[in-house]
């Protein structure tokens, strides 16, 4: 089973993503901030990371930079309400940029795409 790390500070949203992604057949680990995300990444193996950008404490962009330093091979999806960060070149380090929507289809498709790419590498 593929394991996904979800970094999302909004409790209701993290619950929604967790349930929806579990239904798709993934194992989902939820953390609420960048610090706990890094802690998890150091200890466990993940196939994919989904993160928001604006969060209390360190933001998602800092998280991406740190993850790149730790583990270059994990694909990262930015899932955020902000369109504007797409122009921030730091977000280009992520493998995909998804704008939050009540339909999770785009996010689910991106996950499939990235996991498939990784497998065929």
């Amino acid at each position, binding site marked *: 089973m593929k394991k996904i790390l979800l970094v999302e*500070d909004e*409790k*209701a*949203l993290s619950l*929604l993503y967790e349930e*929806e992604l579990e239904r798709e057949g993934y194992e989902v680990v939820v953390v609420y901030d960048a610090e706990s995300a890094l802690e998890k990444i150091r200890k466990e193996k993940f196939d994919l990371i989904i993160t928001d950008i*604006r969060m209390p404490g360190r933001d998602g962009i800092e998280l991406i930079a740190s993850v790149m330093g730790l583990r270059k091979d994990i694909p990262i999806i930015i899932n955020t309400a902000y369109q*504007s960060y797409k122009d921030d070149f730091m977000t280009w380090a992520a493998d995909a940029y998804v704008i*939050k929507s*009540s339909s999770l289809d785009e996010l689910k498709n991106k996950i499939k795409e990235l996991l498939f790419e990784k497998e065929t590498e």
Partner: protein
Amino acid sequence: MIQRFSLQPASFTPESSKEMVLLSIIAQSFFQPFSLDDNLLVILTALTSGTGVGFNRALLFLKEGERLQARMWLGPRSPEEAQAIWSILSTPGIGYAEIVEHNRELVDRTMEALQPKLRFLNYNLDVPDLKIPALAARNQEIVLVKEAKKERLVDDNFREFVDVDSFLCLPLVAKNELMGEIVVDNGITRAPITAKDIDLASLCGLLAGNYIYTTHLYKKVLEMEKMAALGEMAAFVSHQLRNPIVAIGGFTRQLLNRPCDLEKCQRNLSIIQQETKHLEEIIFKISHFLKISIKELKPIDVRPIILSLLERPDLKAKAESKRLVLRLNDQLPKILCDQVYFEEAMVNLLDNALDVTPAGGHVYLRVFPANNKWLRLTIKDSGPGLDEKTQEKIFTPFFTTKEKGIGLGLLFVKRVMEMCAGKIEVQSKPGHGTLFKLYFKAIEEKGAS
């Protein structure tokens, strides 16, 4: 031996050279408030004052779109008027400020009658057979016209308006772009325009062009700042709204697309209800924030306000497991503010302090006179403190460290402080809590109350 001189030459004497007077007028114009009209008036004054370049009259055109429009005319209209004005202006000891002030009055007084005539002095710069004075502007060259009555290149309207034989056209240019034009003449004294006059006038033209240019630039910058703030706000508001909307939409989809047991249905519905409530709060707070306006500052006594604040149930509940330590002088000067806004600002600060202070921690609130001019109010928490990067951002709209925060609280406090002519400072270090210092202007007590 020590000799002392005043910083600015206070008055002009007939012995001062024209260059000196001109330089002094222009230099002093920098002390004027940043208003285009004022600065242009200074230039026109420099061109026309007897001790300046010394033209009799000056007419100012501004470029508006692709047209050149007459805007301001400075100078006497008849020899009698000239006599009256020049005798005032040549009074010994009269200074630059008086001359500009006098000219401002003159312009104000004469503009009403002149306005209809000036309106006709309006030239489309795009037409092929453009005439003087507009032609000089378009070609960006200084033009001296003599025997204007015989010169076919001079516009008839203009000739009739100035009614003079000889005049000088000074295009106003900045960064190769046309800003306007000044036309000067000696319509009263009929004195010839000399090469030296032209040199000095061209200097004035250069300055006037740049004044207009910087004013345009300044306006543009203000506009851009406003747009940037608006853009940032729109981005944040849409983010704040999007999160609850995605949650509401997502859980609604679950309810519609999949059968669920009673428990899960109930849970989804209650999440939807909570998120809707959150949306309402966001909208309420934003509209409340946008409405801040203190119409009248009144003397207020902070002591009873603060004492009653500490009885508020919401703050009391938050302070339950923490210690709120109050130090309030018995004798405090009143301050000028608005009671409701002051109260709300205090609630914001106490709320923040209590939020970050862990159970068992202290929050200190102290109010005391800093000196006889200021009342000082400090709030110190025992929270985690703020690093430098965070400190820089705390007054930025929509910056928050709280999960459900909107990021308008401290900005609200800052705006209230500004409106009450106060100051707010922050001191913080990670691991050492945060200290907010507020300074309010103290009102001097008139007699014992």
